[in-house]
Structures are given as C-alpha cells and as structure tokens.
C-alpha cells in the first residue's frame, strides 16, 4: 500500500452536515403523487384462532381505498417469508410463515388485515373499525415448559415446539471433567431486547401495472436481499424490481431481513394500483420488528485449582418466537465461540431453538457473540472466585497466546495479543490503586466492584466456505469503481450503511488507493438500480469484506491506468511507478500523468492495441477467513446496598480492531456499542405476561432505553494488531463494544456484592432485584 494521508485520518463524517441540518432522506420523506397510506390491523392475542373478520364498517369509513385480508393477498404473494438454512441440526422444524395470518394468530402483533386510505389518519381510524372474532388459545411462553412433550403447541399444525436441536462436541469432554479439581455451574440469562433503531421501519411501494415493474423504498440493511425475496415471491424479476433505501436511521440487526410488511405493501400497491406507504409507528415497532437475545445458558466449567481451564459444557436455549427469524439460527454461533479468548481441552455445546408465542427473535448487534462472551467471561470469574485467584490473572494464565490459533471447533483466530490489551486496560484504570480503593471503601460499608471482559470476536462475515453452512448464505461482497473522464470517481457497493459512515470511510480508502482527491469520490449504496448485488451490512463485515471488494476494484483500475501510462510514455509497464495517483517512468517523476489525465485518455482514441475504452472495474470479494477483533474492557461500579442502585464509576476500554481507517468513526462505534451493552446490563428488558402472552413493556415509558445522562465517560484506548486476513489489515468494530460491555458491568456488580456471598447477578441488574438478593443474603 502506498504511503497514505487519508487512511487512518480522523476526518469528520461527510454524512453529518446533511443529517444534522434536517436534509436526510429517510423513509417517511418519500412521498409520491397519488400515494395511499396503509395501516395494519394486528392481533391483540398471543395465540388465537380467527373465527371471522368483518371489514364492512372499515370499508364504509371515510377515505378508505381498500381493506384486505389473507385471502386477498394469496393470489399475489406466492412464497413464504425466507429462512436461511443455517447450521446442520440433529432436528429441525422450519414452518412456513405467510405474510399475513389467515386462520390462526400466534403472536401479539401478527397482521390480520390491511387498511388502505387516502391518508394515515383515516387509515388508522378505519383500522379501529375492523372487527375480528378471535377464539383465544393457550399461549406458550416458558422455554422449558415449551420443550415438554405434553406442552400446548405454539401453532396447532406443528409437531412440537422445537425449531432446532444441534450438538457441537469438540474433544473429550468427559476426560476434561475427570481431570477437574473444581467444577462451577451457572445458569445465565440473556433477556429479550428491542433493537430500537431511532428510525422505525417503513416502506413505500409503487407497482406499475402495465409493465409489471416495482419500485420499493424501504428502511433496510439489505436492499439486494429484499429485492431477491420480495421480487421472487411476487413474481417480479430483479430486472423489473428496484429497491431503494436512502438514509437509514439505525438497524442494529433488526433490518437485516425481508419483512412481511415489504411483501404486504408491494402486493397492496399492485392490488389498489396506486403507490402505497406504510410507516411503522413506535408501539407497533415494539411488536412487529424482530427482537434480540431471549436466551438461557446452562453452563459448567471444569478447572484445576491453579486456575487452568479444562472443559466447558453448555446448552443454549434460544427463544425463536413464533416463527424463525431469517437468520435466527445464526445465533447458534455462540456455541462455536463459547470458549472465548482461552485454551480449552474440550468443549461440548448444544443449542436448542424453541418456539414461543412471542415476536420472532433475529440477530441484534453481536448476534450470538455478546451471549457467548457474557457466558464465558461470567464463568471465568466464577472459577476465579471459587479458587481465590485474581480474575485478571486467571484470564492471563488461560489466554490463547500464539496465532493463528485453531479453536476447538476448527475456527482459526487470525491474530491477536490478548495480554497486551489486558495490560493496557489495567494500567489505564490503575488496577492496583482501584483494588486498594475497593478495600478502603468496603471498610466504610461501601461496595465498589471491578469487572473484566477480555473478549474476542468473530466477524467480517464472511468466508463463503464457512458462512454458507453457518448462516445459510455465502456472504461475499461487491463493488464497482468507475473513474469518470475528468477524474472524479463513483463507487457503487453492495453493502448499505445505516449509521456506519461508509460514505466517509470508503471514500478515504478509494482516495488513497487511487490517488485522487477525497472530495472527488462518491459512494453509492442502497439502490439496487445502480449497485452490484451484495449481501448488505451486518456482522461487522462492511469494511473487512466490502472494503476489500473496493480495494480489488481499485487495484484493477490502477492496473489499467498503469497500462495507459506505459502506452503514453512509450515505456514498459514494469517501468511505471505509481505514487499517490501520479504515474511516471522510473527515474523521471517530473514528467507524470495524473489518474484524471489517464482516465480522460481511456475514453478517447489511440488506446493500446486490444484495450477497450473506459476506466472502471467490478469485483466480488470472498475473504479467506473471518477477522478476529479483541480487547479488554474494565468497569468499576458502586452498588448502594440500601437501594440496589448501581452507579458506574469508571469504564475503560482497550480495543484492537487491526488497522483503523478513521479513528473518530471507530470511537463512535465503540461509544454506541458500549452504551448498548451497558443498557442490557442495567436497563432494557422486554417483558411479557407469562400467562396471556401480552407484552408488558409496550411503550418507551416502560421499556428503558437509557440516555446520555445514564452513561459514564468512556475512556477509550486501542492497540493495533493488523489482521493478516486482508490487505487493509482491518477487522471490525461495529459490534465489539456491545459484545464486550454487558459482562464488564455485570462482573463489576457481582464483584461489588461478593462480601454478601453473592456470586451471580442476572440482567438487567435492576435495583429491586439487587436489593432482594442482598436482603436474602443478609438473612
């Protein structure tokens, strides 16, 4: 790589001036002539049979264009919602989900009818007039009860409530446990979460009847995926189906699937022969957008008294919800990386996916990896507590130390230096002094705790050879780089940012690699009409996979430009030197051609024999491996034993995501990611009534998203261990903060409460729960 000035530069996001001055173009900003508005009537019951739907009053209401139910959609939607075929399981049940319920609703929020009216107010008013006669059925809510052979069924046509049951044995687990001097066991919960992007979902569909052509604007992380499946189900070929996703106000994984509303809105536009808009309101979003987590881990660790970890056994119970999410089974990845940053003789994991009468779960920031990290980092602390060893030392003793490292399941950790981030974080927080302060405060009856999280993350999804079996799709990525005749550059990519600053960071890469001004590079994404097919943005993949696809196209452009320069200078290609966009004959830098001059020449006459006009390239990149960011987060909290209140005293993070394209963007990702993990640890939980299946946290008053006021100052630092997996040496950072942080907080709280004999705390660490635990411990 050339000596660069932009890769690694802390430059401001080019997205911001537009967004912060209100010139963003979000889904509700899309307005078409003659557009009708759609409201969805959703089931208030978690489980019920539909006896009848009476739409007569709604049809007669002011401004109503149409009222539609399942029977109206069946002639237009020819396929169920997609479910990727992830992981080979011993047992698997993948029931079809049609976009709208016909005779049985199986979660509160499932669509039963659609009302189309001249505006959204009228549509909502008429939706209230749709009368649905339900016969309530028992709601299946508890994971373990749902597994019992005599459990009521989530849906009456299923054989049982098991979605998958997959075993992942690695090594001789019995031998590892036979060797144990210490065995610790713990059940660890992962409560359900709302992904809560700032912008809820929504779409505008415009079906043009005469040539069977669709334009679908939607708020998504995966425009090409949406086109593939929605177009397929509606019988509209990709060439006739354009998906446009402009600015997307966050997704956190909840927008990585084609959603039933995209099917319904498009089909409705076809039926009413008008453009149709549907915007998800917030309370609707809490029911209708996929949830995250919703898991229970039963874990056992075998160790020696000197702190050597031996064996890890665990079962992941995962609440699938009513239907499979498109990628729900991907979260089984927690089994394959449950060993974390440590050496184990053997690991035996099992994942059971269980249907319940709740909204579906699907990946949410981290997707399986926060759960795995939370589990292993909790267990390591329990071992340390059991044998009386400092948790930092136990970690250090068991760290994987040589790289590349093949873990128990054959995954290859590409690079790392785990003791380095641990040492740096301990120095930054002044660990020795903090432990002394903890002892001093305890003497005063105050409870300070210190929690570690030394995580390793698998991301950059991913090599097709691994993701095809694990995620059900070969997650490659694409780019097209086109140098225009006067030297400006258009880059079109298959990824799609929803807050990741790709327009800035990708332009930094291209400007440096081609040697063109940063301002001359334009990034296009989100429109299937002018971007090559790609799998979208999630799994911290856009840089490590998508960025490399851009690099590949840039290299092809440079290669052609070199040929053009050689031709212009009547020199051989081997003698052409490329230096930051200047092409010259070795030894004669004074007489150089810029890439703009070569681009101009490329569109003209007199090219080398056999060369076509133009200066552009299309590339697809399939990485040879995942990438493996890592780091150490240390949190210090104080717990008020009288109120159970937790205040975060310090939060220190040292992350290593390899080479950094833009430090400010990386810091931003960490701020948001850490905040979301802290939020899971202390605040957020989706609660349902366990009997009726009604959601109890159905508004933002009851579902606690913390604000800046609840967050500590993040003390960030990083080490740089370039990834050997890709030429840029980059890893991923979009999920790392979330993966690391929940357990740093929980380990700190548990450490604070150790004097009470409390060994484990579940999330969220609500004040009333902590107080109850302290009270019981004192009794």
């Amino acid at each position, binding site marked *: 790589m050339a000596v660069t000035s932009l890769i690694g530069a802390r430059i401001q996001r080019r997205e911001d001036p537009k967004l912060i001055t209100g010139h963003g173009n979000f889904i509700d900003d899309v307005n078409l002539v003659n557009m009708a508005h759609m409201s969805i009537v959703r089931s208030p019951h978690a489980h019920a049979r539909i006896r009848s739907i009476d739409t007569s009053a709604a049809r007669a209401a002011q401004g109503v264009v149409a009222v539609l139910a399942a029977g109206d959609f069946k002639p237009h939607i020819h396929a169920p919602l997609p479910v990727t075929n992830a992981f080979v399981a011993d047992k698997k049940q993948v029931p079809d989900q049609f976009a709208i319920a016909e005779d049985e609703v199986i979660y509160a929020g499932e669509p039963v009818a659609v009302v189309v009216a001249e505006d*959204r*107010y009228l549509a*909502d*008013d008429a939706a*209230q007039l749709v009368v649905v006669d339900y016969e309530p059925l028992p709601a299946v809510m508890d994971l373990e009860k749902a597994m019992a052979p005599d459990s009521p069924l989530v849906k009456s046509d299923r054989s049982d409530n098991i979605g998958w049951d997959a075993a992942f044995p690695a090594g001789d687990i019995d031998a590892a446990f036979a060797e144990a001097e210490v065995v610790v066991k713990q059940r660890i919960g992962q409560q359900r979460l709302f992904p809560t992007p700032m912008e809820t979902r929504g779409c505008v569909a415009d079906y043009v009847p005469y040539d069977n052509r669709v334009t679908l604007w939607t708020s998504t992380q995966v425009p090409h995926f949406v086109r593939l499946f929605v177009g397929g189900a509606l019988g509209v070929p990709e060439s006739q189906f354009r998906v446009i996703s402009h600015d997307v106000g966050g997704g956190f994984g909840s927008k990585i699937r084609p959603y039933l509303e995209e099917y319904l809105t498009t089909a409705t536009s076809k039926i009413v022969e008008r453009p149709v808009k549907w915007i998800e*309101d*917030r*309370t*609707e979003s809490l029911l209708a957008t996929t949830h995250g987590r919703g898991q229970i881990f039963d874990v056992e660790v075998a160790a020696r008294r000197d702190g050597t970890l031996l064996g890890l056994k665990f079962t992941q119970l995962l609440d699938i919800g009513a239907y499979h999410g498109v990628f729900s089974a991907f979260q089984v990845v927690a089994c394959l990386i449950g060993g974390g940053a440590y050496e184990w003789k053997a690991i035996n994991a099992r994942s059971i996916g269980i249907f319940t009468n709740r909204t579906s779960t699907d990946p949410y920031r981290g997707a399986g990896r926060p759960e795995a990290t939370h589990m292993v980092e909790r267990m390591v602390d329990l071992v340390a507590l059991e044998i009386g060893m400092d948790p930092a030392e136990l970690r250090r003793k068991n760290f994987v130390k040589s790289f590349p490292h093949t873990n128990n399941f054959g995954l290859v950790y590409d690079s790392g230096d785990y003791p380095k981030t641990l040492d740096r974080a301990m120095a930054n927080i002044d660990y020795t002094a903090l432990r002394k302060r903890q002892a001093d405060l305890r003497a005063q009856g105050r409870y300070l705790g210190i929690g570690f999280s030394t995580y390793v993350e698998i991301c950059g999804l991913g090599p097709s050879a691994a993701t095809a079996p694990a995620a059900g799709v070969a997650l490659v990525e694409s780019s097209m780089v086109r140098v225009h005749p006067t030297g400006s550059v258009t880059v079109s990519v298959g990824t799609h940012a929803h807050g990741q600053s790709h327009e800035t960071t990708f332009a930094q890469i291209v400007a440096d690699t081609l040697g063109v001004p940063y301002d001359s590079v334009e990034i296009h994404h989100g429109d299937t009409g002018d971007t090559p097919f790609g799998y979208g943005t999630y799994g911290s993949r856009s840089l490590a996979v998508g960025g490399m696809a851009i690099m590949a196209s840039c290299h092809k452009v440079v290669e052609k430009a070199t040929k053009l320069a050689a031709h212009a200078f009547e020199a051989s290609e081997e003698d052409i030197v490329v230096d930051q966009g200047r092409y010259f004959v070795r030894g004669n830098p004074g007489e150089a051609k810029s890439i703009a001059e070569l681009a101009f020449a490329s569109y003209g006459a007199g090219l080398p024999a056999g060369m076509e006009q133009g200066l552009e390239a299309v590339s697809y990149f399939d990485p040879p491996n995942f990438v493996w960011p890592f780091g150490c987060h240390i949190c210090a909290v104080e717990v008020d034993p*009288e*109120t*159970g*209140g937790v205040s975060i005293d310090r939060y220190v993070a040292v992350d290593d995501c390899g080479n950094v394209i833009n430090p400010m963007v990386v810091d931003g990702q960490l701020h948001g990611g850490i905040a979301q993990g802290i939020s899971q640890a*202390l*605040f957020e939980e989706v*609660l349902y009534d366990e009997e009726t299946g009604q959601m*109890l*946290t159905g*508004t933002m*008053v*009851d579902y*606690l998203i*913390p*604000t800046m*006021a*609840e967050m500590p100052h993040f003390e960030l630092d990083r080490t740089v261990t370039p990834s050997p997996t890709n030429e840029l040496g980059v890893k991923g950072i979009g999920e790392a903060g979330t993966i690391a942080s929940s357990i740093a907080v929980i380990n700190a709280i548990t450490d604070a409460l150790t004097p009470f004999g409390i060994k484990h705390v579940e999330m969220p660490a*609500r*004040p*009333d729960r902590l*107080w*109850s635990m302290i*009270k019981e411990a004192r009794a």
Partner: protein
Amino acid sequence: MITAPFEYARPGSVDEAQSLLTKFGDDAKVIAGGQSLIPLMRLRLSQPTALVDIQGIGELKQVRRDNGTIEIGALVRHVDIQRNAVLRETLPILVEMANDVGDNQVRNLGTIGGVIAHGDAAGDYNALALMLDAEIVTNKRRHQARDFYRDILTTALEHDEVVTAVRFPVSTGRFAYTKFRRRLYDWALAGVAVQESGSSWRVGYVNLARTPRRGSAVEAALASGASAADAAAQSGSDIDPTSDVRATAEYKRHLTEVLTVRTLQKAAAV
C-alpha cells in the same frame, strides 16, 4: 400513534372555556401543555371527542404573592417555575421539583395546572399540594388539596371545571426532595418531599399509591421527637404501592423508608 378524531377549540377566556366544555359535553377534555394527555391520546387510551385548548388565556400565566400565600396560575410552565425569582424565595421546594420534571421539551410545555388536573400520583407537584395543604382554584370553586385527589388519575374536578390556579402557603423553611429514578427523565419510582413548616415537618410521597400521599404517620412521629430513622419506619402506613414492571411493591416500601431517612437528613443539613 395517531390520535382518534376530535374537535378542537381555543377559547380566549375562562368563561368561554367553560361554555365550550358545556357545549362539547362529558367527553371533552381541557388541554394545556398536553404532556400527559397527548401521549395517552396517541396510544388511543384516551379518545376525547373535543379538546378545549386553554393556552391562549393570558390571565392564567401569572405568579402572585398574596401575603402568606403564593398563587400560581394554571398555565405557568415547569420552565417558568424554574426561572421564577419569587418562587425561588417563597416556595423553593417547588423550584427544585420543577428542575427534575421530565426533560427540556416537557418542561417547556408542561404546566402546573395540567399536573394538578391530571391528578397523577407520579406528578411531583400533587404530593406537594397535598402535604402543604394547597388550594386548587377553578372556575367554579376552591378545592382543598386534601379533598381533591380521589383515585388513580381521578380528581374532584367536574367535566366543565377548569383549574385556574394553585395556592400554596409561602414555605421558606428547610426542605428536600428525593426522586429515585432509573433514568434521569423518568417519573419517580418513589419520590419523597419534606418541608419544614414552622416547628413541624411536612412529608409527601410521589408515585407510591393510586393517589399522591401525605406522610401523616411520619409527620406525627417526627412531631413526637422520633429520629429520622424511627419516623421513616412509619412510612409504610402512609403509602400503598403496587408491583409493576419497574419494581415490586415490597421494594418500593423499603425504598420509601430509605429515601425518607435520607431526605430528612438532607433537609436537616441544609
């Protein structure tokens, strides 16, 4: 998140407001800042047939001292309370409460009259009105706060009655207010207000029963010379919390006792 249809009128006087309420009937509601009503309407939990918007009535925006009484107009907003020099001198505990109501948007729109008329146990000012024996002035009568709060979100107001002002006794003694929240902008999980009044203490409880509550048992214990801890131990008979998604009733009772001690200690240290 879109309200059901409703009529809307913006009267210029209290009399006009009353006649509009009479005209629209029982299902009409008065709206001021709308910070409680609008969210309920957006969830369609409240579907009034008409809104009588009193925000244009200038006479309801005054703060007046009247010897030992401070009268606050119904349309005085939280932000006005925060910035009012007279209130800072005559009723500083109200200013302290206002500082911690909601967020900037809520404080810029929400009014004291709205809090009183909504009668929410979580509305901080309601507990203060109760503990200080405030008078609630309407277009029809004066209510004693002790007779005003009837049940959950239910007050003594009749459907054509408009709150015009609240009259508090000037209270310049030592005071403290503690609002235990999980997030800065939340309602109190439990709120405890204490105000020195002459030689005695007044105590009020926010969001710890179906209505705001006065800490009568705690006040009596304090009057008889009990320590803060012993007095706080009486708080259980002053409140009646229920379990909800935020916390168990048992925890709220315990928390109230802890906060009562702390609030009394904080006030005494002022």
